[in-house]
């Protein structure tokens, strides 16, 4: 197991939780300084792992909240490098997995980009627009640098394909709970429990459920269905967006992360 995969495995093993809590943050949103405090607040509130989004101009897998946050972060001048520096600070507290669109990885050069992640203490990488068929170069670079490349499966993924993806998963397997982009949903789809069951049967690594989990009750439902980890994104990013100032943003996400953590005890 690589260094990154070991750190991630430890995050799933911990402290009597029913599932690991994996909050997402948009790096550099609403600005770099506030974003740094948000990372701290996630760790303080009980995050087991932090998913760090690197802002991209054209995020096809994201709904309006995270899309707007990425646009705002870029407008505020965030760069990939600054977000990675921020990530290295968070990584001193909890493992960090970067969520990055393919063009940012390729523009820098796959090997150099992955080396940069490793140099900043990042444990894993999620590329939401890099399906299995396109991922060889990134997977090899991750193996070489000790990072876990975390693939995604969706409700539309057939069983046979899920097994092939599951076999390549390192760190964890990211199960997309809804057929759609990121964003809060009134209720989890009926199919999410079946998806968790299918995903767990397809892989030896832990399965984390994300997309559409916006309340502590939904997080508990995910754990009840057998998810090893729960990813919460848009709800937290929205809280940061709605807060008035840096102190309020940090306090708001801290309260939310604490509530999600309590729900998973």
């Amino acid at each position, binding site marked *: 197991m690589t260094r990154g995969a070991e750190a991630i495995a430890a995050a799933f093993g911990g402290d009597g939780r029913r599932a690991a809590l994996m909050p997402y943050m948009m790096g550099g949103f609403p600005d770099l300084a506030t974003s740094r405090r948000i990372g701290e607040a996630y760790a303080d509130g009980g995050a087991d792992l932090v998913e760090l989004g690197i802002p*991209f*101009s*054209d995020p*096809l*897998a994201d*709904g309006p909240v995270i*899309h707007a946050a990425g*646009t705002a972060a*870029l407008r505020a001048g965030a*760069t*990939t490098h600054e977000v990675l520096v921020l990530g290295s600070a968070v990584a001193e507290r909890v493992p960090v997995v970067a969520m990055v*669109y*393919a*063009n*940012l*990885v*390729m*523009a*820098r050069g796959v090997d150099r980009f992955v080396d940069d992640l490793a140099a900043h203490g990042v444990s894993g990488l999620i590329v*939401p*627009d*890099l*399906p299995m*068929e*396109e991922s060889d170069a990134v997977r090899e670079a991750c193996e070489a640098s000790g990072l876990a490349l975390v*693939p*995604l*499966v*969706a*409700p*539309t*993924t*057939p069983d046979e*394909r899920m097994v092939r*993806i599951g076999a390549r998963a390192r760190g964890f397997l990211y199960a*997309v709970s809804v*057929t*759609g*982009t990121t964003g809060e949903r009134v209720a989890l789809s009926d199919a999410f429990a079946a998806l968790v069951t299918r995903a767990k049967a397809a892989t030896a690594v832990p399965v984390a459920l994300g997309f559409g989990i916006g309340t502590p009750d939904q997080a508990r439902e995910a754990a009840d269905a057998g998810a090893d980890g729960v990813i919460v994104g848009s709800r937290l990013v929205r809280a940061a967006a709605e807060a008035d100032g840096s102190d309020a943003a940090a306090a708001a996400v801290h309260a939310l992360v604490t509530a999600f953590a309590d729900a998973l005890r």
Partner: protein
Amino acid sequence: MSAVEHRFGPYGGQYVPETLMPALAELERAWVAARDDPGFRSELEGLRRDYVGRPSPLYLARRLSEAAGRRLYLKREDLNHTGSHKINNALGQALLARNMGKRRIIAETGAGQHGVATASACALMDLECVIYMGVEDVRRQRPNVQRMELLGATVSPVDAGARTLKEATSAAIRDWVANVESTHYIIGSAVGPAPYPAMVRDLQRVIGDEARAQVLEQEGRLPDRVIACVGGGSNAIGIFAAFIADDGVELIGVEAGGEALEPGRHGAPLTVAGRPGVLHGALSAVLQDEMGQILEAHSISAGLDYPGTGPEHAHLRDTGRARYVAVSDAEALETFRRVTRLEGIIPALETAHALHYALQPAEADVDLICCSGRGDKDLAEVLAQA
């Protein structure tokens, strides 16, 4: 080996969320079956003839030829039903969607020509239709918005980024991710993840196949040059496809030079030849910054106002089989007026880019130009520039 090209040299691929991968595989299977199915082919051919008005004429443009000092042939895609080449692709994909049992169609549009073509095909086949269009394009292509709405489509304005074609395409892809089981996405150009670039080319190839036969008949020889405008590049790849094996025929794609060939002021990724990048599911020539953020494009022509292009064009450029050049906003406007006065043909602003290049001095005797669309939609924009 796949039956449909996924890569053109290093370009192309399928850079999309996992949710869409099974749908792309399903689409590819359906397309491979349909293109060899006599029933599908005869229905499409019948509609091309009786509904679209194909074959479109090849016209030896008298006064333009005089002005250029050589023979300029226009392939009159502007005379198609709905006013552009876009209907060739929209009809084919709408038929395919109907055969696949998808009752809901989504599409993006820039100039509105693809939106109108798709809305028309959906009206004909009784399919639900949602068209994504940037707010800026809704403003500058108002007549086409009204046509789409009359045709029964829902026009969904997209208020993000520069509010043009790039954001409209992103919005359509997000819709498809959410509704993939009921919905087919009729992408309007030779862009996007495989199998789209190859499928759209094959549906547009009718332009080149007809034109090649027509020019041989009228001129007794092949043209020296084939010239077409390139945004995503579907009319260009459609006309080029029939001539790629003809080594003596030069293929020239004309991109949007915009205000200047500086970042954010043009739509000419093939001409400026930056680092390749991933946009809307494919690796191709893309306008981007050092970090890999996609840059906004600019063109007076909404259909060319796009920072990416079709992957096969990037490959044709790299291999030297086609050459790509840029024509500015001002040049396109000037040629729009000139062609209108000389020939009594109002070309689309997109097409005016190709016509402008064709009118420049060159070592050639016979040119074939894809007259990809008509310019009625552009009147307000052009008159406002006076």
